[in-house]
């Protein structure tokens, strides 16, 4: 139980961000992140290294996200329609634009992008989770960014008017 708690503290926030981008709904994202730790707690053995644990936890998360998408498709849930051209600077609207842009990506592109951007996994870790080479991860993340850039032109233009920081935000 102690090991599971350590993993919970280390990865919960990253998992919620990952699921938030993957499913587009904050409450569902929190529930799915909890489901990851139910499976972690039920596991008989954990990887030894920190990198191995992180890749393993996100492998579980990815499977849960895939299952969730499969159930949603069976239910034929319609995505919320938003017009990014409206260009509101309201942060809630921006979050919806981002979710809509993420939803436009194919599943694998969204996964590799979110694992990097939302959870901070390295290319090697993402390659391990998604059964790709690190070079393929680099290429897919870049293509995902180019697609998102197209979808989010107005929010990006607004963000470029503010002071910027290149690194990932710390938890």
């Amino acid at each position, binding site marked *: *139980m102690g090991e*599971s*708690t350590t993993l*919970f*503290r280390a990865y*919960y*926030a990253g998992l*919620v*961000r*990952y*699921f*938030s*981008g993957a499913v587009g709904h*904050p*409450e569902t*994202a*929190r529930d799915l992140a*909890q*489901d*990851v*730790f*139910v499976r*972690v*707690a*039920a596991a008989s053995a954990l990887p030894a290294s920190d990198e191995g644990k992180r890749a393993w936890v996100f492998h579980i998360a990815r499977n849960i996200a895939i299952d969730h998408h499969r159930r949603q498709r069976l239910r034929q849930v319609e995505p919320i329609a938003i017009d990014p051209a409206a260009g509101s600077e309201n*942060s809630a609207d*921006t*979050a919806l*634009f*981002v*979710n809509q842009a993420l939803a436009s990506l194919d599943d694998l592109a969204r996964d590799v992008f*979110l694992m*990097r*951007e*939302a959870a901070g996994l*390295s*290319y090697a870790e993402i390659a391990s989770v998604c059964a790709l080479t*690190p070079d393929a991860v*680099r*290429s897919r*993340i*870049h*293509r995902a*960014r180019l697609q*998102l*850039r197209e979808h*989010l032109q107005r*929010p*990006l*233009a607004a*963000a*470029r008017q*503010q002071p*910027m*920081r*290149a*690194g*990932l*935000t710390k*938890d």
Partner: protein
Amino acid sequence: MHDVISAFLDNEPFDGQELSTALATPDGRELLLDLIALRAVVHPALSTAVPAGGSARRPRWIWLSAAAVLVALAAGYQAGRWSDRGAAQVPGTSASGLSAPPAPTSEFRFEPGVNWTDASASGGT
């Protein structure tokens, strides 16, 4: 390809010459700024789902795991009861769980004074 810019932003290994070439064009420099802005837009949007206090939320998984253990224990107890009930219905077993010896299927009687090792007495060769 400008994916070297992504590798640079992600703190991954990259070729310096390749990055220099990519940033030598206005398109490459615009892309760098847009990708930095993309991060500034996306990260706060994803973080809205993280509860205040980050991971301080009471972990539901602990309760779910405890519930799973309780369910497993209850199922094991119930299975044991059914197993006992099934055993009580087998002929030759008593309600207390102590089983009586089975009935014999054949019986041999040994009479005193008979030499059963003598083959000639029974007409054998």
